[in-house]
C-alpha cells in the first residue's frame, strides 16, 4: 500500500471534508431550528437551499451580461450575493411556513410533513419552469472568479483554494452569530422559550407566531447562504441540486442531536469529514475493491452505529416528554 500517497493527500482531504461539512452544517441549522420549535421535519428546506443558489447565479449572470462583474471587487460581489441569497431564501421560508404549515398547526404530525414534501416538489418544478422560460436552460454554471480560484500553497503537496477558505470562514462567522443570537439575546430567549413550551411562552407575553416566522427566516437565510456558497464552490446548480445535500444535512442534524444548534454544526462536520475520507481513501485502502461510490454507505453505517449507542445524537439531551 502506498502510505506516502495516503499521507500526502491527508491535509487536502481534511480541507475537502471541512468545506463540505460546514456546508452541511449551514443547511442542517434550518432543519434543526424548525424541528426545535415545531417538531416538524421541514423537507422543503433543501429547496430553500437550492433557491439561494439560483439567486446567486442569476445575480452573477446578470452582472456578467452587463459587464459589472469585472468592475467590482469580487469579495464585495460575493458578500452581496450571499446577502441576497439569504434574504430571498429567508423570506421564501417564511412564506412557505405561512402558506403550507401554519394552517396545519395542531393537525397530526404526519400532515405538515406531507405538506412539506409537496412544497419541495412544487419549488423544484417552479424553478425549473421559471429558468426554462427565462434562460431556456436550468442547468446553470456560476461564472468563475480568478481571485477565488487562486491557490494558497502551504507545502509542496498542501494547497487550498481561496474559495474553500471563504466557505469555512463565512460558515464559521454565521454559526457563531447564530449561536450568539440564540443564547445571548432576548430574541434568542424567546425562541428557546417557544421551543420548550409554546402555551407557556405565549402566556409570558411571547408572540409565538412571530417567533416561529423568525425561526423560519433565520433557518432559511442560513440555507440560502449555503446555496450561494455551494454554487461558488462547485460551480454548478440545477433545480434538483438541493435533494442530496438536503438529505445529508438532515442526517447531520439527526447525528448531532436534532433541535440542538451546536449539534447541527458538529453533525455536519462529522458527516462531511467521514464522507470526504471515505470517498478519497476507500479505493486506495481496499486496492480498488470499494470505490468512492461507497462513501455514503460508509458514512451512513457510522451514523447508524452512533445512533444505536446515542439515540439522541452526539450532543442531544434527553428532553422531557410533553404532557
Amino acid at each position, binding site marked *: 500500500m502506498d502510505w506516502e500517497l495516503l499521507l500526502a493527500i491527508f491535509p487536502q482531504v481534511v480541507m475537502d471534508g471541512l468545506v463540505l461539512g460546514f456546508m452541511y452544517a449551514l443547511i442542517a441549522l434550518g432543519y434543526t431550528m424548525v424541528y426545535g420549535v415545531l417538531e416538524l421535519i421541514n423537507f422543503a428546506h433543501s429547496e430553500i437551499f437550492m433557491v439561494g443558489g439560483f439567486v446567486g447565479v442569476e445575480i452573477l449572470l446578470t452582472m456578467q451580461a452587463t459587464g459589472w462583474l469585472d468592475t467590482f471587487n469580487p469579495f464585495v460581489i460575493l458578500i452581496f450575493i450571499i446577502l441576497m441569497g439569504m434574504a430571498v431564501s429567508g423570506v421564501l421560508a417564511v412564506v412557505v411556513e405561512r402558506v403550507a404549515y401554519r394552517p396545519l398547526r395542531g393537525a397530526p404530525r404526519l400532515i405538515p410533513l406531507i405538506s412539506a414534501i409537496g412544497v419541495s416538489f412544487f419549488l423544484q418544478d417552479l424553478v425549473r419552469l421559471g429558468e426554462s422560460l427565462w434562460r431556456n436552460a436550468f*442547468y446553470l454554471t456560476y461564472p468563475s472568479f480568478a481571485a477565488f480560484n487562486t491557490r494558497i500553497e502551504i507545502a509542496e503537496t498542501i494547497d487550498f483554494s481561496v474559495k474553500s477558505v471563504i466557505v469555512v470562514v463565512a460558515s464559521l462567522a454565521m454559526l457563531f452569530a447564530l449561536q450568539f443570537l440564540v443564547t445571548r439575546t432576548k430574541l434568542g430567549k424567546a425562541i428557546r422559550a417557544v421551543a420548550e413550551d409554546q402555551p407557556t411562552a405565549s402566556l409570558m407575553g411571547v408572540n409565538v407566531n412571530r417567533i416561529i416566522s423568525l425561526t423560519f427566516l433565520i433557518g432559511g437565510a442560513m440555507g440560502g447562504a449555503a446555496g450561494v456558497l455551494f454554487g461558488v464552490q462547485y460551480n454548478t446548480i440545477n433545480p434538483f441540486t438541493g435533494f442530496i445535500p438536503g438529505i445529508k444535512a438532515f442526517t447531520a442534524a439527526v447525528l448531532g442531536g436534532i433541535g440542538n444548534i451546536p449539534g447541527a454544526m458538529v453533525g455536519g462536520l462529522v458527516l462531511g469529514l467521514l464522507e470526504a475520507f471515505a470517498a478519497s481513501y476507500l479505493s486506495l485502502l481496499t486496492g480498488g475493491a470499494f470505490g468512492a461510490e461507497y462513501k455514503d454507505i460508509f458514512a451512513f453505517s457510522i451514523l447508524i452505529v452512533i445512533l444505536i449507542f446515542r439515540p439522541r445524537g452526539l450532543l442531544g439531551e434527553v428532553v422531557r416528554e410533553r404532557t
Partner: protein
Amino acid sequence: MISRRSLFILTLALAVAAVPATGQLGAQGKGTIKIATQTPLSGELAALGEGMKLATQLAIEQLKGPVEKAGFKVELVPFDDQAKPDVGVANAKNILADKDILVVVGHLNSGVALPASEVYKEANLAMVSPANTSPLITDRGLPNVSRVCGRDDVQGAVAAQFAKENLKAKSVYIVHNKNQYGQGIAEFFQEWSKKNGVNVVGFEGSEERANFDPILTPIKAKNPDVIFFGGEYPQAAPLFRQAREKGIKSKFMGPDGVDSSELLKLGGDAVVGMHYTTVAGGVKEYPKAKAFADSFKKKFNKDPEPFAAQSYDSTAIALKAIEAAIKDAGGKMPTRDAVTKAVRKVKHSGITSAVEFDDKGDPKKATYLIYQVAKKWDDRKMVKRLEIAAPQKKM
C-alpha cells in the same frame, strides 16, 4: 434545453402540418405507416434527443416519396424516453400496441436501448439505432436491432491508442459515471490502455454531479498524464472544471457522450484543448451532409447536434426497408417481420457513411473521429479520422 411548453407547441405544429397531407392522399390511401423515434426530449440530454427527432422528421419529409407512391402515408411518432430505462420500456410497450409503427429510430442512450429493444423483439419490430455505441446492442444477436454508428469497444481502443501515441500519456486515471454507457467505455479504455502498456493509476465510478473534490484529491496526488471520463457532458464539464480549479494539470479526454456544445458552456476554459472521441461528430466532417445541414438549419432555425445526421441516415434506411417490404408484399401493408428482415438487406449510401449491415446488425465499417475542443464550439478541430470494421463476435 427544450422546455415542455415549446415541445407541446411543436407537436401541435406538426399535427397541423400533417392535416393537408391527409386530404391529398385520402383517395388512394392504403393506410398509414408510422416511424417512431425514442429519444430524450426532456431533461439534461434533450438537446441531443431533440436534434435526433427533428432529423428523423426531416428525413421522412424529404424521402417518403417512394413509399407514398406505393399508396401509404408516412408519419412520425415521437416518444420521449427521458434517458431513463423504465420510461423507455414503458414507451416501447405503447409502441408495440400501435400496429402501424413498423420501425423505431432510437435511442440516444445505450442503457435505455438495451431493455427497450428486448420489448421490440417480442413483436420482431425493427430498431435502427443512430447513436447506441454499447457493444451489447448488437452482440446479443437480436435479429431486429441494427445500428449505423460505431461501437464502444472500438472507440475505447481508439481513445487509448490516441492517449498513448498522440498525447504521449504514460499514466491515465479513469473516472466514469456508473451508467451502462459510461462504465462500459471506461472499461474498454482501461483494457486497451493496459494492453498498450500505459499505467492505469486509478479507476473510479461516481454518480456525483456537483462535488467532485473527494474524487479529485487522489487524482491530484497521483498526477496522471491523462484523465479519461466515461460518461456524458453534464458530469464531465463540472468534473474537468473543478479539476483545473484544484490545480490539476493533466490532459482531459472523453468519449462521444461529451460531444455537445453544452460541454463548453458548462465547462468553460477548463475543457478548451481537451480531446474526445466520437462516432458522430459535426456535420461539416461529412461532405455529403451539407445539404442536410442547410435544410435542417433553414427548417428548424438551429444547427444539427451530433447524431442528427446519423438519425437522418437511420430513417433513410428504415424507409428503404419499408419500400422493399411493400414490394415483397405485392403492394400491401408489410408486416413487422418483413420490414425487420428488409432492414438488414439495405445497402445505403448515406450522408454520413455507406452503411451495409453485418449479420449482427453492426455496420461493416464505422467512422471514429477524434476532436480537440477550441475556445468556440464551432472551431473544434477534428484531429483524426478512422474507418474501422466492427469486431467479430467472440465465440
